[in-house]
């Protein structure tokens, strides 16, 4: 294994072994918890010392949250009691601009994730969120020289209210569903990135989110604006140690790709097995722009995530890759949405899911082509691999096509691995787990060749580790 690969694995794969460092204490943390109501939202807003307009937005979102019904298709969250958890946890740390300045116990977590190495070697910028706040922001000179703005979301609200107002919650309005509304009422943390016209950043920027405690909610908000003809790659990683009880994540990502820009947004979600994870991700793509999503869902107990792109502009393009692994009694309800408005737009959805050891994967997709989105082409393909009888996979694609000149295709395949396949591989000396991991990697191959090399190699290792643990005696 190369050092780079090892580093990448540490960064995205720590959950089963991940422990908080010795001497870690959250006793000095400022916590807002309890029933989600007006006074609680006001308290969060006050703690952040934020402008009136943001508080107003939060309160409107709160009203929507109270009004909206709990989506009836959401299952597996019986344990979740929104009114019992801590909604805002401010660690005893300010914003460090150099990682050596992060308080020691948090810094140890940061180091154990190998983030300093990644930052040095491969990233143009990095933010590290611990509980509800960003505790570290590292920006390379290049970003400053090119006038790229990368800030904790709160700071952007203070310093660039005009830009933030223009986009915040405009791409993904809170009123769309209960968890989007809850997120908007309680949001804290996340990053703001603005890439000026014509600027291309050769290295990716990364945001890493860490949740240290049980019965806590994390509601980070990431807003990424790529101005005309700019280019950026964003990597999002997340991690948490195993707790005794659940924790809750309800984040949001909003992306605005202006004319001719290119945005690639890569997530490797590896929350520990007791995190209930909701995510709200949406991009708007203007003329000739390209938005690519890659959502790797590995960890968490339950995940609901559907990266979506609105192809607003003519000749806009998007590709959405989702790779979901449910290994063990987990549920991944993932999918993608493409809504095409512009002419000659193009979209591609590739969903791959792997269910093993009693895991369930659900694909929920939406392709909507509005009248006037002439000659738009969207394809989606869903491949499911089911490794044993206890596991399952369900697919709910949904197409709404109002434009006759558009072309939409959908294909779905389900493969299983039988005892005969496994015996064959085992008769060549592989353990059951190794046999499964090879078959899973083979299954993912066409996605792996299409994503950034580093991510491909991480996913590759994720799969090998996930599946070599099981069934083998070797």
């Amino acid at each position, binding site marked *: 294994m190369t050092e780079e690969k090892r580093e990448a694995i540490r960064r995205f794969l720590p959950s089963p072994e991940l422990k908080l460092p010795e001497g870690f204490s959250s006793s000095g943390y400022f916590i807002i918890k309890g029933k989600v109501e007006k006074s609680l939202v006001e308290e969060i807003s006050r703690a952040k010392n934020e402008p009136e307009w943001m508080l107003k937005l939060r309160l409107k979102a709160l009203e929507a949250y109270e009004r909206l019904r709990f989506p009836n298709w959401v299952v597996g969250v019986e344990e979740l009691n929104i009114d019992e958890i801590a909604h805002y946890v401010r660690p005893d740390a300010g914003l460090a601009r150099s990682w050596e300045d992060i308080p020691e116990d948090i810094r140890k977590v940061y180091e154990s994730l190998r983030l300093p190495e990644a930052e040095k070697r491969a990233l143009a910028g990095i933010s590290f969120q611990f509980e509800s706040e960003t505790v570290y922001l590292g920006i390379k000179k290049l970003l400053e020289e090119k006038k790229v703005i990368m800030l904790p979301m709160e700071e952007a609200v203070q310093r660039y209210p005009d830009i933030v107002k223009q986009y915040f919650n405009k791409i993904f309005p809170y009123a769309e569903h209960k968890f989007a509304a809850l997120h908007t009422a309680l949001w804290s943390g996340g990053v703001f990135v603005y890439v000026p016209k014509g600027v291309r950043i050769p290295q990716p920027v990364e945001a890493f989110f860490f949740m240290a405690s049980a019965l806590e909610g994390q509601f980070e908000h990431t807003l990424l604006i790529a101005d005309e003809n700019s280019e950026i790659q964003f990597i999002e990683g997340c991690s948490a140690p195993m707790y005794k009880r659940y924790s809750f994540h309800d984040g949001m990502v909003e992306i605005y790709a202006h004319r001719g820009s290119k945005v690639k947004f890569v997530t490797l979600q590896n929350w520990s097995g007791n995190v209930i994870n909701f995510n709200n991700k949406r991009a708007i793509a203007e003329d000739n722009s390209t938005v690519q999503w890659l959502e790797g869902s590995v960890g968490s107990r339950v995940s609901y995530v559907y990266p979506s792109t609105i192809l607003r502009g003519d000749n806009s393009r998007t590709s959405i890759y989702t790779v979901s692994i449910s290994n063990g009694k987990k549920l991944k309800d993932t999918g993608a949405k493409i809504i095409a408005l512009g002419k000659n737009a193009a979209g591609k959805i590739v969903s791959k899911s792997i269910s093993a050891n009693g895991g369930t994967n659900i694909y929920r997709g939406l392709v909507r082509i509005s009248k006037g989105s002439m000659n738009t082409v969207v394809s989606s393909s869903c491949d499911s691999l089911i490794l044993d009888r206890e596991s399952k996979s369900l697919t709910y694609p949904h197409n709404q096509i109002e434009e006759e000149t558009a072309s939409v295709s959908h294909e779905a395949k389900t493969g299983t691995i039988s005892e*005969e396949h496994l015996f064959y591989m085992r*008769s060549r000396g592989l353990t059951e787990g190794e046999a499964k991991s*090879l078959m899973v990697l083979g299954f993912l191959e066409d996605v792996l060749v299409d994503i950034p090399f580093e991510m491909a190699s991480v996913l590759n290792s994720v799969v090998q580790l996930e599946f070599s643990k099981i069934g083998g005696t070797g």
Partner: protein
Amino acid sequence: MPLVAEGVEAEAGGKVILKGVTLELREGEVLAVMGPNGSGKTTLANVIAGSPSVSLKKGRILIDGEDVTELPPEERVLRGLMLLFQSPPEIKGVKLSTLMIASFNKRRGLSSDLLKVTDPSIFSKMRSSLSVVGLSDEYLYREVNVGFSGGEKKRSELAQAMMLDPKYVIMDEPDSGLDIDGLRVVGEIISRMKREGKSVLLITHYTRLFSTVKPDRISVLMRGRIVAQGGMEIAEEIDRSGYSKLAERLGVELNND
């Protein structure tokens, strides 16, 4: 030291198939196991290799004197056993080269990183094993057995055996579905393995391979029992008068109940 199946009684799909089979494959020999269709040859091969589809009710399997009855198939491979399938399944997504590299690493105890190429000569080894069985290099990059013809599957099994380098090879009808050239290749490979000191358990119901490779001994399986053992004279008798006459002479039932 031999590979031994001792008093094996086994069931598959709730049906008793092997009814007390004892068989010894000695070092460096070619032992042919012959028998009509449905006599239990594949089941015997599976039980020796540790297939979970067969349940062993009685008896033991020993490799070099070690009781491996409770060991999973892959552990038996590490001890030098390999089964070449009568009907190898299609393994979607896994390239032949991937499987070869992984199994090569396992067999040599290099399992820390399954797919790592530690020995750069592995590629030339793979290519030469394919060329010996008459397959082009291109098969390395095809998915294992996917879309292979019957004969190509058999050839690929043999190529894998050359890569894995087992001590005891069980070949389950390596000759079925092969043309004349293919038969010659199989015969030559078995002869070569024998020269290298490997032991081959050659399961077949025809004698046609025996012109290129003469088995040292022949056992005949009928209805889950070994009914005859001997040398080439048995093959000659089967060739001359068929299994039913042989069964008649031995006073056993040929067909399954």
